[in-house]
């Protein structure tokens, strides 16, 4: 009985991280119609800054529970500095260009950020197990599980609820819905689309960085985590339907649990199963589970 429970717990944990990543990716796509290949790099950036801030904070010898604040601060800092910079300098000049060009620009950004992170933090892996070890473990139905992992799932859930509430319930959120539906008409209604783009991209960047910072205590923070993250995040948003937050949540659950099951039952096929599911979903729903069919434009 322990294996199914372990699969479920690990699956939900993967799903929590994937959701934070995919929510940002899908938000940016929904608003700006740009698929950001560098999204995984923002996740890695969050992992690095979070780790660096926690390590710096711990070396000052302050009270230990505050290290969680340092972790969060790292993510918010990384996202809110890099996000607006990238949007203003790189993406703004190419909104009118073809999709292919936009993909290539974010791919270039991915390449640049990879090396920038290597230059700043080197290639040796960083470990910051303190936030993980501090909370101890709990036994759920015979499976030992860390409290930190449960905390992570809770934070991801809360973030998801918060993002949905912000989009549905606030003035800016409603403007985002309007811009997603029709950019031109929104402009005529007096919505400052350019400012909204900066805001949406920054929010997406913070979500990605948050995912990275939260997962950092569980993994070795090293070059290569961004590639792994973006490859899975793509699968999640494509399964769920690009531009849909509900889709991102469902996609994250599907990919997370599948991946956990594969890790336990058929480790050779870990990545392959995720993508086979994605191809299977697309065969029957070409725009993903929650995606909307686009009108053909003459």
């Amino acid at each position: 009985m322990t294996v199914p429970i372990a699969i479920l717990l690990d699956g939900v944990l993967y799903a929590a991280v994937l959701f934070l990543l995919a929510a940002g990716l899908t938000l940016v796509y929904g608003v700006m119609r740009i698929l950001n290949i560098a999204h995984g790099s923002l996740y890695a950036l969050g992992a690095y800054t979070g780790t660096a801030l926690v390590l710096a904070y711990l070396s000052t010898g302050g009270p230990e529970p505050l290290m969680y604040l340092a972790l969060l601060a790292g993510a918010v800092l990384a996202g809110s500095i890099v996000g607006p910079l990238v949007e203003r300098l790189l993406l703004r000049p190419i909104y009118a260009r073809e999709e292919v060009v936009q993909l290539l620009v974010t791919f270039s950004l991915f390449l640049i950020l990879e090396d920038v992170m290597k230059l700043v933090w080197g290639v040796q892996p960083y470990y910051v197990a303190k936030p993980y070890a501090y909370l101890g473990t709990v036994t759920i139905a015979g499976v030992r599980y860390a409290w930190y992992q449960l905390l992570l799932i809770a934070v991801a859930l809360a973030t998801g609820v918060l993002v949905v509430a912000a989009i549905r319930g606030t003035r800016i959120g409603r403007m985002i819905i309007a811009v997603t539906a029709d950019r031109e008409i929104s402009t005529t209604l007096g919505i400052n689309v350019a400012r909204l783009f900066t805001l949406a991209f920054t929010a997406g960047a913070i979500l990605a960085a948050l995912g990275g910072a939260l997962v950092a205590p569980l993994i070795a923070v090293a070059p290569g985590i961004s590639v792994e993250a973006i490859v899975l995040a793509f699968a999640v948003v494509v399964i769920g339907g690009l531009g849909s937050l509900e889709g991102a949540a469902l996609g994250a659950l599907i990919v997370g649990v599948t991946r956990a099951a594969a890790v336990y039952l058929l480790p050779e096929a870990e990545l392959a199963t995720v993508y086979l599911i994605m191809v299977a979903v697309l065969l029957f729903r070409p725009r993903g589970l929650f995606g909307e069919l686009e009108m053909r434009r003459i």
Partner: protein
Amino acid sequence: MSGREGALALVAAAALVAVPLLLPGWVAFLLTLALAKSVVVLAIALLLRAGLVSFGHGMFFAAGAYTVGLLMKRVGVHEAVLLTAAGIVVAAAAAALVGLFIARYRGIFFAMLNMAISMVVYSVLLKLYWLTGGTDGIGIRTPVILGMTPDRESLRLAIYYFTLALTLPAFYVVQRFWNSALGFVLRAVRDNEVRVEYMGTSVYRSIYAAYVLSGGLAGLGGVLTGFSVGHIVPEQAYWTTSGEFVFVAVLGGPASVPGPLVGSIAFEFLKSYASKYAAFTWQMTLGAAMLVIILFMPGGLWTIYGWLARGGRRWAWSSKPSA
């Protein structure tokens, strides 16, 4: 092709034939590699001209290379011509299968699905250790070329000329394809595919045909790269490898026939210098260069030829101080 361009192509071909006899061995090696990879870049450029970008052509590149590796190691085939034919057929067959599914998609979905499938191929190559050797890859021994086994001294030149003898026809075939009826349909698809359908042409079938041709070309590139490097690894199917090919296509200028060749040669030489002097900033340099080209030089490096051909007017214009 105008008379002037035909003459230029002949001069370029003659130069490529003569170069390894005049220059040191390492130049010949880099050129072999550049020629081999230029065929994959050509495959990417063909799709780019139809407005499609593939972040997964590494899978066909790897299909060609692994066909050679497995046939050599497991079956004992050593004849280069046979191996090349097999590599092209396997890659084209793979593209024919994947294409059935992928030719339905455009834009981001086309790019990302290619990537997804190539990542599956990558993980299979990585995990099937008993067959593919996993991360160790497969070593490729000296091939027999048309019944002759090149000796140690002539091996490098033999592989160079073998590569050249297959690369130039590949460029010719693509040029013919691009100027065929199907090629014109693809140009139209890029502009407005709904109108193409109204004219009674199947967009799906046109893209499918281009995709199979493109897959076969990428396979040929994989075969030739396998021969010249002598070793193949699963990373050939990894999405960043595919991204590199896309980069080179943009660098050279996908709209021009020689673009992939020019881009490929420039790229291999840059890379060999960069790995020596700027190992840690190599990707950054690539990314920055791609940004500059996309934002300021959409025609790629080949644009420079256009400027020169127009009597250097653009140069004069761009060097004028901005008042």
